[in-house]
């Protein structure tokens, strides 16, 4: 076996182990360890991605001395390696971009605990991406949930703690349903590894046995993961959690944590149930409807909001609606569009959160739109970055959001029966997006009378500016060179089967 095949295992273990190490280090050293680990995992994922592209086939890796149905496995393909790389990039940039806010918002003595949480979150995300075993996925979902809760309430104001409680309650309902569905699935198939489960499921479908429990178990797992990733009716915790937690946390939570669950759902759809079997159930219609509702109601709530961070948070609800709408179309094209939207949304949303703190900082810390008037002149980099993010969200060409909207509409045209609904809602949602993002952009570019707020230039915060540039470049890369990425996603999905 090629040595590169060890990399998925190494990246999971390094990030787990670094969490333990950080617990005895002082905050500064923990920060260095954290950055180094994220960068190392990113580099390993990149090498792995290149290796997988050159060989063109996925591989499984035994976690122990025992082969498939007995031992535990992880599995790597193009999509997994690409996702891991992408998650590392976003996480590194978010941590770097929000680092200076950490000092004001988190008690100094608890900084190293924050880095432990981030390391463990990274490891759980990697494990969710690479795992080939359903029960392992459940365990790491729990790590993900708890560390995400920690990220929310590390900044201890009343709102975040209340949001953390609500988040935990929702997540635990979700985990309960997921585990129940998993148990039923285990009872029917007798396996916990995804590939073996899939074989048994297709046999059961062919023989017509146990149809009802099978569908119910799939539905329970889907609902559980939907609840955890804050699909529309289950999003009550989201605005406070994203709106009031510290900036890095908000960026990581909105762009990575919910995406981890969604990626697990994709794995379940492809690798446990089978794409065709999943599409023959009515579950996709339910996902489709809730996705559409999320797109509309998320945007409407965002328009009604007059706090910039909460507005971005509500916009996340709408964007998650897009992703589930793609699932609900039940075609390969819809799935590709959803996965591309995962990437594009992660890149854009973290950019917006990081840019928003730059704007609020030069407005006396206030997040109300009234006080943000003219903020883009006081911090030009943040203003430009916020504008780039907004343009991407609205779907202006050159930016990533445009490509995902294009892919969604292309996918929608191919689906009979759902075409009209999805195109209309896409249109409405784009208009609504434009309303609330352009409103904000115009607001921050309206000159204000001398307000006495300080002006921040690039020289004052170099690292922050560089992070913003990296984010913008990432967005533009996703928007300009979309074809290779779409090809890669298609190749990765083909490897799933």
């Amino acid at each position, binding site marked *: 076996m090629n040595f590169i095949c060890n990399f998925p295992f190494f990246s999971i273990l390094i990030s787990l182990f670094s969490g333990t190490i950080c617990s005895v280090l002082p905050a500064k050293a923990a920060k260095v360890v954290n950055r180094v680990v994220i960068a190392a995992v990113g580099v390993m994922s990149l090498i792995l991605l290149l290796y997988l592209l050159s060989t063109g086939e996925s591989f499984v890796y035994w976690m122990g001395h025992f082969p498939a149905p007995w031992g535990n496995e992880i599995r790597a393909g193009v999509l997994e390696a690409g996702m891991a790389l992408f998650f590392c990039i976003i996480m590194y940039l978010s941590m770097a971009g929000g680092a200076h806010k950490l000092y004001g918002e988190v008690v100094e003595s608890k900084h190293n605990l924050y880095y432990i949480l981030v390391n463990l979150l990274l490891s759980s995300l990697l494990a969710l991406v690479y795992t080939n075993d359903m*029960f392992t996925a459940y365990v790491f979902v729990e790590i993900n949930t708890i560390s995400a809760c920690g990220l929310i309430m590390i900044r201890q104001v009343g709102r975040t*703690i209340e949001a953390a409680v609500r988040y935990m309650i929702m997540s635990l309902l979700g985990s309960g349903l997921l585990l129940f569905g998993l*148990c039923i699935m285990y009872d029917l198939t007798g396996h916990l590894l995804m590939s073996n489960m899939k074989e048994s499921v297709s046999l059961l479908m062919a023989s017509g046995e146990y149809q009802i429990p099978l569908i119910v178990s799939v539905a329970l797992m889907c609902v559980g993961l939907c609840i955890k990733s804050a699909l529309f009716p289950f999003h009550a915790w989201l605005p406070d959690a994203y709106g009031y937690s510290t900036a890095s946390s908000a960026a990581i939570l909105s762009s990575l944590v919910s995406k981890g669950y969604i990626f697990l759902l994709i794995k379940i759809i492809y690798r446990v149930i089978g794409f065709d079997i999943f599409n023959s159930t009515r579950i996709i219609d339910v996902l489709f409807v809730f996705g559409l509702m999320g797109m509309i109601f998320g945007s409407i709530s965002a328009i009604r909001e007059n706090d910039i961070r909460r507005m971005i948070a509500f916009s996340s609800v709408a964007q998650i609606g897009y992703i589930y709408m793609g699932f609900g179309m039940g075609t390969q094209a819809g799935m590709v569009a959803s996965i591309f939207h995962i990437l594009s949304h992660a890149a854009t949303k973290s950019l917006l959160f990081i840019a928003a703190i730059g704007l609020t900082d030069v407005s006396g810390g206030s997040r109300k739109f009234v006080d943000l008037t003219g903020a883009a002149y006081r911090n030009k980099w943040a203003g430009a970055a916020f504008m780039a993010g907004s343009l991407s969200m609205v779907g202006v060409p050159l930016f990533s959001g445009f490509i995902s909207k294009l892919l969604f509409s292309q996918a929608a045209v191919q689906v009979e029966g759902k075409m009209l609904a999805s195109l209309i809602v896409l249109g409405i949602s784009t208009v609504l997006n434009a309303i609330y993002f352009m409103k904000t952009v115009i607001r921050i570019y309206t000159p204000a009378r001398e307000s006495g707020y300080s002006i921040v230039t690039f020289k004052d915060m170099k690292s922050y500016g560089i992070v913003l540039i990296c984010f913008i470049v990432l967005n533009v890369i996703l928007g300009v060179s979309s074809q290779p990425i779409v090809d890669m996603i298609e190749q990765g999905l083909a490897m799933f089967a």
Partner: protein
Amino acid sequence: MGPNLLANYGEAVSAILFCIGFTNLLLQTNLIKKIIGLNVMDSAIYLFLAEKGYIAGRVAPIVVNGVTSTEAYINPIPSGLVLTGIVVSVSVTALMLSLTIRLYTRYHTLDLDEISAQLKKEGK
């Protein structure tokens, strides 16, 4: 209704317990009772899972006198999974309880709705 409801009475009980816990988690306003509901829900799932390994007339999977035939022991997998699960539920309980203490020190109430109302009133 299928044929096995009566034979699967244990699973039926665990489903009922699951729903009781679920309802508690959704509807109780008191945080501590919510957490108890959560624990009941988790235990119900573990009962459901443990029922799957049970085979009537066989003994626990601890090798006695070197007998290693599948005829002698029950299925060990569900037990192992439940062991893992119990640890998870303890961790989550501890976390939720500490959140409760934290909220109580700040707002002097255990009612989550009341806390939300206070927060909204503070308006920040």
